[in-house]
């Protein structure tokens, strides 16, 4: 049957509406089309991520004195692995990150547990989110003022009768690290909170009711049922936050500059110091590459393991 035959309506009268000729794309365009769609994302990836990454790897193989590049092979890497400051920075990052992340997760879970059944949660969710909405450097300055320059916290604690006079927050290693942890917890707990609340609210209410009828208390429901069901979400959230914390820079730069005695120097700050204070670009690049590798390995293992055992 010819497709361009006049169509005949049910009562047998031919209607004279000709079909428009089907449009055809040129074969070349049809082949190129998927690549055209991918192009913006690829260009973005190349310019923002891939090029700097490859450049860093390349640079890490040289001793760089501004325009004077000297081939060093894996020399930078071997000196880094013998650099006590590098290992100290790695330890600081791990310690500050681990404490901060545990606190954030614990607090966020606790608030989420109490808040998710609240019908008004939608209304005050924004209040929880506020700290996250501020610029990180502004937050860092606020905490710097509160702890050190403005002595707000000392004053408050003094009025509560907990301490006398002014605390020198940068005078002791644990206290200096604590100021970084407080600032990070304050700003980023809401991120975890919002994810955990969403996960809890997304859980099937029938399951909670079934547990209730089975005789479980609210804490027991949370511990035995809600929390295990949230596991994949918790893992992803902690991984994201963990990556963020590993690269913690702003707070260190603004609040402590790594003092006292390098006790608050994180990996990012170490890299910054090597690159932009001491201008050891090759060395800084090598440290960056090491850190990238480390982060990827940890994140991969954590996520893989969490999802694998979750499926069994």
């Amino acid at each position, binding site marked *: 049957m010819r497709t361009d035959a006049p169509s005949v309506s049910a009562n047998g009268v031919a209607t004279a509406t000709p079909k428009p000729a089907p449009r055809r794309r040129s074969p070349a365009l049809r082949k190129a089309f998927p690549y055209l769609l991918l192009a913006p994302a690829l260009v973005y990836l190349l310019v923002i991520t891939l090029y700097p990454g490859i450049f860093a790897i390349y640079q890490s193989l040289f001793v760089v004195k501004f325009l004077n590049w000297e081939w060093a092979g894996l020399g930078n890497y071997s000196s880094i692995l013998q650099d006590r400051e590098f290992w100290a920075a790695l330890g600081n990052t791990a310690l500050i990150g681990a404490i901060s992340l545990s606190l954030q997760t614990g607090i966020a879970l606790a608030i989420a547990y109490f808040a998710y059944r609240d019908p008004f949660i939608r209304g005050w969710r924004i209040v929880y989110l506020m700290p996250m909405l501020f610029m990180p450097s502004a937050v860092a300055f606020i905490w710097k003022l509160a702890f050190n320059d403005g002595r707000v916290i000392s004053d408050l604690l003094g009025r509560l009768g907990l301490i006398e006079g002014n605390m020198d927050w940068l005078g002791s290693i644990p206290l200096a690290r604590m100021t970084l942890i407080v600032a990070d917890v304050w700003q980023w707990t809401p991120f975890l909170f919002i994810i955990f609340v969403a996960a809890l609210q997304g859980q099937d209410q029938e*399951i909670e009711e079934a*547990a209730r009828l*089975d*005789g479980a208390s609210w804490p027991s429901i949370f511990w*035995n049922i809600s929390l*295990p069901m949230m596991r994949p979400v918790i893992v992803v959230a902690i991984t994201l936050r963990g990556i963020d914390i590993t690269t913690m820079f702003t707070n260190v730069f603004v609040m402590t500059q790594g003092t006292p005695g390098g006790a608050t120097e994180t990996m990012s700050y170490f890299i910054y110091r090597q690159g932009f204070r001491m201008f050891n670009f090759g060395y800084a690049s090598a440290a960056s590459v090491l850190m990238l590798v480390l982060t990827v390995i940890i994140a991969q293992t954590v996520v893989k393991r969490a999802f694998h055992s979750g499926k069994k």
Partner: protein
Amino acid sequence: MASIHLQNIEKRYGGFVGVQNMSLEIADEEFLVLLGPSGCGKTTTMRMIAGLELPTGGKIVIGGEEMTEIDARDRDVAMVFQGYALYPNMSIYENIRFPLRMRGVPASEHDARIRQAADMVELGGFLDRKPGALSGGQRQRAALARAVVRQPQVFLMDEPLSNLDAKLRQSMRVQIKHMQRQLKVTTVYVTHDQIEAMTLADRIVIMNKGAIQQVGTPDQIYSDPANTFVAGFIGSPPMNLIEGTAQNGTFVAPGVTAPCPEYVRGKVTLGVRPEDCHVGGDNVQGMVYGVEPTGDTTYLTVLAGTKKIEVKAAREYRSDIDVPVAIHFDPAHLYFFGEDGQRIRGAA
């Protein structure tokens, strides 16, 4: 094992009345089905018995103890949910074990009781699986086992079969009934499926718009409906309800005449079940609208005036459409309802 008394219970959500002034006695060991269309308040009623919702008025007594304000976890009530509500992170074994753990049953008894419950629903071989690895029917049986294992006073089942396919539903239905008879546990079962209600129930409670329409055995509900709602809701296809007028012992509607008792007068509705209509005779003069053979019977739809009347015809009955046809009603099975929808009964 316990009886349940609902005394004038009521549930309001702001201005909306979910259940109004409902009183009901459920006997010990009884299988009671709450039946009605969606939104009729049947699930709300069950949730109030479970303690998942608090009534805004009235009293709930289970096993002689007032339970109105008692929390769900402290009522000895087990519930099977429409969506199974199994704990996805636990194996079937742990799922069944959960109520035992939560209720402080000695750990030494757990294993025997779990296996007994699992065997009862023929799930013995699946205990180490996670719910996600089971089919719908297996999940529902796991949910049943979880309800059975702790030997509660009352079973509540909220449309437990509605997520299953038709064939599975039939076999699960029998299994539930068998189990209830075996365990002799008072059971309240919510459904919108009248076949489930008819086959399972000792007594059926038909609800509509938050109020009880009729309470009775399946036979009573079927053969003695209290009003047009019950008459139209029960039966498949449902009862024919024909609006007309009655005078001097005769009911008249377009294309329909039928004898009626002397005390039926004025504007009334005649109810007649499709199986009490027969081809031939003189009660209806109409046209064939459609013929639907189903294998064991043939449904004939007759157009009388503007009213379509369903007839359960002989299995081999066939006809073209728009052919004149006459229908005869079985005079012993005619029901008359007043303008308010209530059944008109004789002074006797």
